[in-house]
């Protein structure tokens, strides 16, 4: 909690974070993993357990108000973990949700881990599904398994994984339970040893054709964008903040930032290999 004092104002700006992560990539600091989840699912505990950062995580709803990042090394490769603010969804329009959603959209994480509360899986799955709409590379970390056991709740991890089409790992982060498997799964998803194929319900025909019509127009306007389908859905439903971002040019800046960093990354890679 007190660690927050050391943030410079620039660090609190979400553009800064996205830039910083890109820089890490460009400097070859490894793969970027976004950590999403509802408030109070033990997300920060997972973060601390994996990165060894001993920031205090009090028992507050939604206490992560700015992005924290930490690194860990596994089998010789470096990984950067980014702790997103705890949110219930990526749909509506609070600042926290916007920060989390922008990072998953534009921060180009190599995979996104969604931490869910084993004791209230149904509510938590809403966020998982929304993240799966944006990106394929999703891992579900079913945390608080210890609490679930105490409350007599059993979660069938294999069934869950099969239904979602992405890997799920059961953990009790406070006791370090399951974290080894989580890290292994993360690395295997990133290097492609595990393939993720999110299973989402097929949209009604009318919706599908509307989206199909809009996607090429979005791609024409923002060629660097990777999630045009998701953007199409939001535009058709009339997402207020997204509309504002489009009109003000902020959206173009975010997408441009993405392309810019791709170029820097490839330059850096060339410099490294050549």
């Amino acid at each position, binding site marked *: 909690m007190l660690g927050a004092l050391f943030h410079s104002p620039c660090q609190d700006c979400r553009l800064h974070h996205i830039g910083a992560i890109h820089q890490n990539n460009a400097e070859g600091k490894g793969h970027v993993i976004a950590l999403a989840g509802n408030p109070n699912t033990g997300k920060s505990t997972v973060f601390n357990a994996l990165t060894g950062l001993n920031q205090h995580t009090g028992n507050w709803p939604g206490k992560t108000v700015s992005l924290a990042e930490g690194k860990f090394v596994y089998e010789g490769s470096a990984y950067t973990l980014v702790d997103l603010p705890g949110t219930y969804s990526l749909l509506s329009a609070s600042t926290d949700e916007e920060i989390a959603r922008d990072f998953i959209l534009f921060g180009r994480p190599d995979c996104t881990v969604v931490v869910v509360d084993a004791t209230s899986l149904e509510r938590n799955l809403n966020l998982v599904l929304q993240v799966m709409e944006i990106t394929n590379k999703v891992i579900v970390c079913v945390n608080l398994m210890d*609490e679930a056991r105490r409350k007599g709740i059993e979660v069938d991890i294999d069934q869950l994984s099969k239904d979602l089409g992405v890997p799920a790992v059961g953990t009790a982060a406070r006791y370090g339970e399951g974290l080894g498997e989580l890290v292994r799964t993360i690395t295997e998803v990133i290097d492609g040893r595990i393939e993720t194929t999110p299973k989402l319900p097929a949209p009604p025909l009318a919706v599908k054709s509307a989206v199909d019509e809009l996607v090429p127009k979005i791609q024409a306007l923002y060629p660097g964008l990777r999630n045009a389908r998701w953007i199409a859905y939001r535009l058709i439903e009339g997402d207020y903040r997204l509309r504002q971002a489009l*009109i003000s040019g902020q959206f173009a800046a975010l997408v441009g930032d993405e392309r810019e960093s791709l170029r820097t990354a490839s330059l850096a890679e060339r410099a490294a290999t050549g």
Partner: protein
Amino acid sequence: MNVSATPMPEKPSAAGLLQKADALRETVGGERFRDELVAALYRHAEEIAVRSVRKRKPRGWFADEKVDRIFTHPVLGIPVMAALLAIVFWLTIAGANIPSSFLAGLLMTDGGLTDAFRAYFGIDAPAMLSASLYQLLHELFGVLQAPYWLSGFLVDGVYLGLAWVVSVMLPPMAIFFPLFTLLEDLGYLPRVAFNLDWLFKRAGAHGKQALTMTMGFGCNAAGVIACRVIDSPREKLIAILTNTFVPCNGRFPTLIAVASLFVAGAVAQPGTFVASLIGTATVVGVVILGVATTLIVSWALSRTVLRGEPSVFVLELPPYRRPSVARIIYTSLIDRTVFVLYRACVVAAPAGGIIWLMANLQLGSASIADQVSGFLDPFGRLLGLDGVILLAFIIAIPANEIVLPTALMLYMHQSRMVEVQGTMLSSVLTDHGWTVLTAVCLMLFSLMHNPCGTTIWTIWSETRSTRWTVFGALMPLTIAILVCAFVTNFVRLFSTVSASFAL
């Protein structure tokens, strides 16, 4: 671009894209589309959850709902909360005296641990412990034949500043922080917010301000940052501007020290059970006053400069978690105690040097310290304080933790006290004209005055507005001055009136 392929190409633009999206919305159900999307998502989540979750009869001892029936009870909730707070402060006040006198003996009292051993063990201290580090340092500098100004600046200034901070602040922190962390890790503090949120709504503010206020008890800067959870800019600003009205972990030790050393000691025999109860009641009173001030100022702001309706929200109560002891010890001692102590020391060391310089450099007929505190004195008296206390508050702007140590050092230089005597804390204060009124006004001023440097900086970085930052610093300061002046003059008037009636 191949223009000839399409005779009138629709130039891609953001506005065109939005127009197209608006047109398409009508083909999929218009405004209802969004709701249908969300509903489909929720249905899907439910289907998956049903297949993979099995519930059995719950077992175990943490039955959340039952505990919450008491902790968040509409009538019992607030008294239970006050009682819990009182227990925490009582443990701190009752427990802090003993380590405090041992630390003082070790670090600076004349005669080392002699007094502490006699008082608490009834035996004489071993010979090697009967001189304090302060005395040893002076001897060392004497052997080295260091010039007066060097030993004065380093030992009487920098070292003594650090020693005061450690012996006055460390014991309350080392007891208070683990208890505070325990409440936090249990998940009790969000319940405090839950109990209070209706009050904030009544004050025209956001209910979540109860949460950011509670976080302010930990650290106001962190509390200000936490205001990001409030979406409405108006209510967020109210929460930011009023966060400083609850005492933070940096100010609690000051309040606890003044309450236990002075208020309790002036009313009852120091060190007794009754004294610790009075000290506890005083600190609880200050906290309640802080919450009341927060509400009143929020109400005033939402009726004047920040007018508007409070918005509706859902506050989730996290489940109770069995706290892990190792975690609490680690967090409260390393993250909090060492951090707060370190911050205090970083400020106290140079402040100690500056105080020594101010006390020893002559400006005209008196030392700089005397000149400045003499200049501030009439104003200080008006507030029930004095020039030295005001000077201490100014020196302590970077870190509120050092107000009391700074004032004590200034007093000691003023009375040319070279040796530090045991159990002298409150006697130094009484010698300089402290009464219960002074102690109360100091606590009121500490509670309500401008936020510390870090918090002011945080307000600026959160609001990006110089105007609101200046307001956030000066508004509490003005309130502190007005309240202290009112209390002082009311009490003085009252005692004059009652005195004249007696005659």
